[in-house]
């Protein structure tokens, strides 16, 4: 069931268009992540939902009610701000109770609900503290409790984890998911971090230049990116141009600088047309080159989806080792090799002659 309907939403800052006729529907109880780089329009969309920006055109309908023209204080929408924006002159309890006091909730009930919320975010014993006496992670949880207190129909989270250090981020992420499950509130979370988006989202909307580049589940966006931009943003390091030789039933391509490649499934374009192919670094296999590989001239076929090359650079990443391989055909591929049992001994050093191979399923065909 669609809870939030955004239709034709357009926001302009002077002559610059921040959101361009954007359509999106978000389901009730969903953890929807707006992902995008800086300037993509993700924060603008969040602020338009909160009521801090008036759109030039379009409608925002929440639970059947058109809220486009409502000021922030009349919307059943609450926000956790990136800087948390906790009131420094109030203690934790009064911060969390602020929205309830505005609703005119009786004092005894405010006390009861605030204490339940502080238990929910595990800050029960900090009720009397001032925000400046809390750590970053604690402030984040106070901000979450404060935004949840008025029981909003929609909760907006602006980069909720970006101000936290790495170890705290994972813990807080779990906490967010737990609170979202327990309250059943629709969450819209803004982030620029694709790993964070994949880890928490029920669906992701990837924004690019004020438009949605793709909307889908994390697996859809990661495995079936709809464009070069989506593939690149989701961490596909190898995006190569190619020509379609055979379009169906399974596409056969001529990858420039590599040679022929077999894909799984039909091509999104007719034979003879050009398109791009994404090869994820972690789907590529690396093997020491055999005599047969070395004797074959560059650019010619030598078995399905295999290409000879030379390791030019290696970077140790802990869980994996990333090799840069210059193929004999001229293309450069990034290959990510898992470190089985965490042992890095006996790995390929720069200068090694290698063969890169991949299964047909690893070829992600990107429409132009």
């Amino acid at each position, binding site marked *: 069931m669609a809870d939030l309907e955004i239709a034709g939403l357009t926001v302009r800052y002077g002559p610059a268009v921040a959101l361009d006729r954007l359509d999106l529907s978000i389901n009730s109880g969903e953890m929807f992540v707006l992902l995008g780089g800086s300037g993509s329009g993700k924060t603008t969309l969040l602020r338009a939902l909160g009521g801090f920006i008036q759109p030039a055109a379009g409608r925002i309908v929440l639970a059947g009610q058109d809220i486009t023209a409502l000021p922030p204080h*009349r919307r059943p929408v609450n926000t956790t701000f990136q800087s948390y924006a906790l009131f*420094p002159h109030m203690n934790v309890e009064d911060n969390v109770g*602020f929205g309830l006091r505005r609703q005119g909730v009786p004092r005894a009930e405010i006390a009861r609900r605030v204490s339940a919320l502080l238990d929910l975010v595990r800050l029960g014993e900090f009720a009397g503290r001032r925000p400046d006496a809390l750590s970053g992670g604690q402030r984040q949880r106070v901000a979450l409790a404060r935004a949840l207190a008025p029981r909003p129909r929609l909760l907006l989270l602006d980069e909720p984890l970006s101000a936290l250090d790495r170890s705290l981020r994972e813990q807080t992420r779990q906490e967010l998911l737990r609170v979202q499950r327990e309250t059943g509130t629709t969450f819209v979370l803004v982030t620029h971090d694709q790993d964070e988006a994949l880890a928490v989202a029920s669906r992701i909307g990837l924004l690019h230049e004020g438009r949605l580049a793709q909307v889908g589940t994390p697996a859809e966006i990661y495995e079936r990116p709809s464009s070069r931009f989506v593939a690149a943003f989701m961490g596909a390091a190898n995006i190569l141009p190619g020509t379609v030789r055979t379009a169906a039933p399974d596409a056969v391509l001529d990858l420039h600088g590599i040679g022929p490649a077999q894909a799984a499934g039909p091509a999104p374009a007719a034979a003879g047309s050009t398109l791009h192919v994404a090869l994820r670094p972690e789907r590529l296999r690396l093997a020491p080159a055999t005599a047969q590989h070395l004797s074959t001239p560059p650019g010619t076929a030598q078995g399905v989806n295999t290409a000879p090359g030379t390791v030019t650079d290696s970077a140790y990443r802990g869980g994996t080792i990333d090799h840069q391989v210059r193929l004999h055909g001229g293309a450069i591929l990034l290959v990510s090799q898992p470190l089985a049992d965490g042992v890095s001994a006996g790995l390929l050093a720069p200068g090694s002659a290698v063969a890169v191979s991949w299964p047909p399923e690893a070829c992600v065909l990107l429409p132009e």
Partner: protein
Amino acid sequence: MNRSAVLAPVWLWLLLFVALPVVIVAALSFSSSIPGVPPYTPLLQSPDPANYAALTEDAFYLDAALKSLAVAGVSSVLCLLIGYPIALAIARAPERWRSLLLLGVMLPFWTGFLLRITAWIGLLRDEGWINAGLQAMGLSALRLLYTDFAMYVGVTYAYLPFMILPLYARLSRRDPALEEAAADLGADPWTIFRTVTLPLSVPGIVAGLALVFIPAMGEYVIPELLGGPGAQTIGRALWNEFFSNRDWPMAATVANALLLALLVPMVALRARQ
């Protein structure tokens, strides 16, 4: 370079132009008035607290102190009520307008203080511009000059910038995200002001009140030029002792009493913080 050598001029300045005058005035307040030059008995020859006794016995001085308290209190509250919206408006104005608006606040300082107060005489007197305006509208002229009203107008006008500047300094540093958070949580604009903007600007309010109240307490020129004969403030009492009565020791006593009355609450306030 030696730290104390750098600070020596500062200490010398404070000693010569702050500490020494205070000590002289204090000593003067314990001498007695005599005809002659100088018009007082030699300092510290026979200290006599009679002047302080006169200060408490003669209701004239207590009345003057209360009048000054009223002038300073009412004027600083008026300055706050007028200055707060101005300071907030400047703080909320677009960046490029702010320095221009602040310049507007400080512009009066570029002309002489006496000139500006005298200008109010031209506005307020019986045939002045305000009464001319009232009569042009068919209303009867009002007696404005030489009244308490004129004095309050003058003091409020003169000290308004001292209220606006510290308030602006505080309000311009406020975090707009806090006001957005309050709106987000259901606060209408007035509630945002009452629960977030105003409480967070209290240090600016305190600074502004102090900057207006303290000099207004000893103000002499404005009550003298704009106020009525009944506006006997402590500043006017002091002036009269000095120049009309030539009673320097009594004037010094009044000055000391005023200094103590202002200093003691401030020291107490600071000790509490």
